[in-house]
């Protein structure tokens, strides 16, 4: 079976870098969220890790964008392009993801609607995390208490929203039987032609037509 390249090496690197940072950020954040794991936060070690990971979380994407402005821009456009086709996905999704017939799902583009939704959430919560986090870090002690209170609250809301969506992403990307090639595509960068045809039909058509 032939393979199709889904993700370049650099994209894979960035993905897993973000994963690592997010894991550290999320865990150290969780230490402050759940009281029974809060001893891990004692002495401020987790705060140090959170801040270092935050720098990485912001730094690599910024560098990536500077080195790959065009592809980053394409990716961003993808996340923010929504039309009536997406409604089709929405209608078919319940049956599809619960193991119903594959044919009932309309052809998807490079990223299916669900994946685009995740991209959106990731981007928005990421930005929210960074802005609120930046203010909490660099303006601690100087910004008005009311502002810092709001930042904490919003940071937490983003954590809840992003966190729940992340669970969906991990479940579908790593464990869902229908998304069999998803993990492989983010480790080797490749997926089989059959998979791509069935899961991202629209994209396959466009790319092969260009050829």
């Amino acid at each position: 079976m032939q393979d199709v390249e889904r993700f370049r090496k650099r994209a894979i690197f960035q993905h897993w870098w973000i994963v690592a940072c997010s894991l550290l950020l999320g865990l150290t954040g969780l230490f402050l969220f759940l009281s029974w794991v809060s001893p891990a936060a004692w002495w401020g070690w987790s705060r140090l890790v959170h801040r270092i990971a935050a720098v990485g979380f912001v730094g690599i994407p910024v560098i990536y964008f500077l080195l790959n402005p065009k592809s980053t821009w394409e990716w961003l456009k993808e996340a923010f392009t929504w039309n009536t086709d997406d409604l089709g996905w929405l209608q078919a999704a319940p049956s599809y993801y619960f193991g119903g017939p594959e044919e009932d799902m309309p052809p998807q583009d490079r990223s299916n609607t669900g994946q685009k939704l995740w991209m959106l959430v990731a981007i928005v919560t990421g930005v929210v995390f960074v802005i609120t986090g930046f203010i909490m870090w660099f303006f601690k002690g100087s910004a008005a208490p009311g502002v810092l209170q709001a930042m904490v609250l919003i940071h937490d809301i983003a954590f809840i929203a992003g966190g729940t969506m992340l669970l969906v992403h991990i479940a579908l990307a790593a464990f869902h039987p229908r998304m069999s090639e998803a993990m492989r595509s983010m480790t080797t960068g490749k997926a089989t032609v059959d998979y791509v045809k069935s899961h991202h039909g629209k994209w396959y058509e466009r790319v092969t037509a260009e050829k």
Partner: protein
Amino acid sequence: MSGKAILYDATKCTACRACQVACKNWNELEAEKTVNWGSYENPKDLSTDTWLKIEFREVGSNGDLRWLFTRKACMHCTDAACVKVCPTGALFYRPDGLVSLDKGKCSGCGYCVEFCPFEIPRIDTAIGQVFGRAAKCTACTTPGLNRLDNGYAPACVKTCPTGALEYDDRYKLVSAAKAKVEELKAIGYGNANLYGEDLVGGTHVLYILDDTPEVYGLIPDPKVPATATAWQDVIKPLGYAAVGVVGLGLLLNIMVARARIISKEEK
């Protein structure tokens, strides 16, 4: 209300600042480098090294000039916003109602600093400050430097030469203070009041004032911030619920999908 309290009688305070020095002495806190900025008051603000200070205010003018002194330190609230938002439990309620702080558990998040309605706790905020932790008056209950559990009054109370500070059962102090407030009113201090009796559930540091709290630089109606309540009592529980529901839902989804797709393949 039960528990212990500290009573500060502003009408007896002469702003000698023995309390300020006793606090530093007992809690082994460093002196700050200060300059005279045009007042006897120093340092200018509380900090991780200054947990208690006296503020000086000149009010009125020739003939009715008053020089008022206000104690500034943790109010030891019954409904303490800092305890509410502290993620690690470094800030906690003692059985006697005082709010203590175990620095060893502090994560340096700074939420206590941001949510306290009296703006009391401090944290080292320098950019390079990596392990900066919060600090505030613990009424001398800091682990390892605990006076109260060893039968002693807080250092500030012990040192005060005029008796402006007292430490006793809260209900006794409230009763005595209210009597003093009535005496003050009787001799013409119509705005005399007992500050802290019912604020934020009742504070364990009470002030006898002969004028309004505002004149003494105190916040007249402090409250636990709405953001703290929203955060801890609404959003966090909702968050648990959301994650729980989604998590369960995903589990269900994966199991069902596996069953149906695998059985299909077997077919």
